[in-house]
């Protein structure tokens, strides 16, 4: 799915921000990318979601060598990736509905599909009454859920979230991870970057730890799943068992889950046309 070999990144003549990064993300896997601020997490994510080109090394996305691919292929690869940016990057002048519809429109989906599927997904995210709001009218948590909805609306093959748990309290952070786990169960590979190693350690998902631009074993993460993906591939540890996790859940503030139970998120992207 994602394969990096000896990837390095430097800007100009500065020292390398990333060096000798080799990793493999397996299809259906769930990964935490940990590391202190400035360790190079965002740069590594940018290389994976094709916002940056590495200074050296090989990047392969969905079995395509990125460096050899042309511009149109890059865009086609990007359409298979959902990104939750650290600053959400919602389009201010577009409504919540149109923000979430953006990836579908870009992919050339029919307006009928968009009319049906976007409200459904936003309802699943607990935003059914905010469809026509603009981002500025939403709270930070709501904006983040819109950003997540936009990232998953086409049911991407790979979901990348940059510090989604950064400035929110623990319960909501747990809830977010639950959402990502559900998406993961639908077959999407998930990669979450966080500076909070302790938080990531609460989950049995595999960890990639960045330390001063290089991958290493996390210092505080539990031994077994840590760095499992370093330099090679191994089967996903599976996300299903996380439902047994006893972490506290707050249903009052940000619970996006439908009252009926753990329904899977709708996947409007399934039917959408792949515009080339």
């Amino acid at each position, binding site marked *: 799915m994602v394969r990096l070999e000896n990837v390095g990144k430097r800007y100009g003549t500065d020292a390398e921000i990333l060096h000798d990064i080799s990793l493999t993300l397996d299809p259906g896997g769930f990964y935490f990318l940990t590391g202190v601020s400035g360790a190079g997490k965002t740069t590594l994510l940018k290389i994976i979601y094709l916002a940056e080109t590495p200074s050296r090394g090989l990047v392969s996305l969905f079995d395509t060598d990125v460096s050899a691919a042309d511009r149109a292929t890059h*865009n086609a*690869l*990007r359409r298979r*990736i959902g990104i939750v940016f650290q600053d959400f990057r919602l389009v201010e002048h577009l409504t919540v509905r149109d923000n979430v519809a*953006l990836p579908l429109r870009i992919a050339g989906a029919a307006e009928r599909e968009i009319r049906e599927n976007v409200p459904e997904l936003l309802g699943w995210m607990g935003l059914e009454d905010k469809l026509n709001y603009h981002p500025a009218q939403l709270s930070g948590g709501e904006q983040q859920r819109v950003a997540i909805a*936009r990232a998953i609306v086409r049911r991407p093959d790979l979901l990348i979230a940059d510090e989604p748990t950064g400035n929110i309290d623990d319960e909501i952070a747990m809830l977010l991870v639950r959402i990502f786990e559900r998406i993961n169960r639908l077959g999407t590979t998930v990669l979450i970057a966080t500076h909070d190693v302790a938080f990531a350690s609460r989950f049995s998902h595999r960890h990639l730890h960045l330390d001063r631009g290089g991958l290493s074993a996390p210092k505080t993460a539990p031994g077994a799943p840590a760095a499992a993906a370093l330099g090679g591939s191994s089967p996903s540890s599976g996300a299903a068992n996380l439902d047994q996790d006893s972490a506290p859940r707050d249903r009052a503030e940000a619970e996006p889950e439908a009252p009926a139970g753990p329904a899977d998120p709708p996947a409007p992207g399934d039917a959408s046309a792949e*515009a*080339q």
Partner: protein
Amino acid sequence: MIGAALLPRQFRLDLPLRRDASGRFLPWIIALMVYLAAVGGIALIWLGDTLNQWDESLTSKLTLQIPADTSAARIDMVLGALRQTKGVVWAYLLAPEETAKLLEPWLGSSVSIATLPLPRLVDVRVDPHVAIDYATLRQQLDTIVQGAQLDNNGTWLAGVREFALRVEGVITAGVLAVTALIVTIVVFTARIGLAIHRTIIELLHLLGAQDSYIARQFQVHALGLGLRGGVIGGTAAFATVVVLGPAAHMFALPVPIAAYGIFDWRLWLLLIVTGLAAGGVAMLTARITVLRQLARMP
């Protein structure tokens, strides 16, 4: 944004281009350009019509002056020679009274024309499609009546035609300059738009948007601005014709546009074509500019 929701998807903009300041001044600049081009076009039509009229009337009309003291027999010989010339349709000798009538505006009716040594005039009509060797004809006429003068309007008209051609050239150059100006303005507007909305454009790229998807937004926007300018400029040009048409009539200027007035189909065609062309040029320019700029982005 209820209005935007009702638009067909081809006209939906993810970029807030309609809020840019460029959208406010660009239609007016384009309107001015369209106005100049349309008025230039109307002038071209008028010029063409006028020349055609002159062509028909003047190239087929000649005047022969015969000195006053020429005998009737000589005059008959001249008329005979003219009528036998290939291409001459008819030759009519004006009676002295008719000649006097022509001169009346200058001399007044009180002057006894009969006392003046007036030359005899022959009104000659020729087939404009037959090339006549005027040099030979003049020589021939001169041998019959010394001092006979054949005025050929063609020589004079050739000068007018050359002048008209130059005017046409100037107007065409003006229209080209106007087009180039629209292109330049749209190029800069599109570049400014790209710079202003760079963040959103980068986002669209990260969401996998192809360059053509982003370019489409700019071209739709430019098409709208261009058409708006086209309508304003076209309306102004139309108003000019409405105002100046009757005025031209008053001065008895040979202005066909004024003669046919606002019912001349060519006027409408010109206005529609100019307006659409403004939209089309703006749209194409925006598309090409944006695609070229985007190709330089990562």
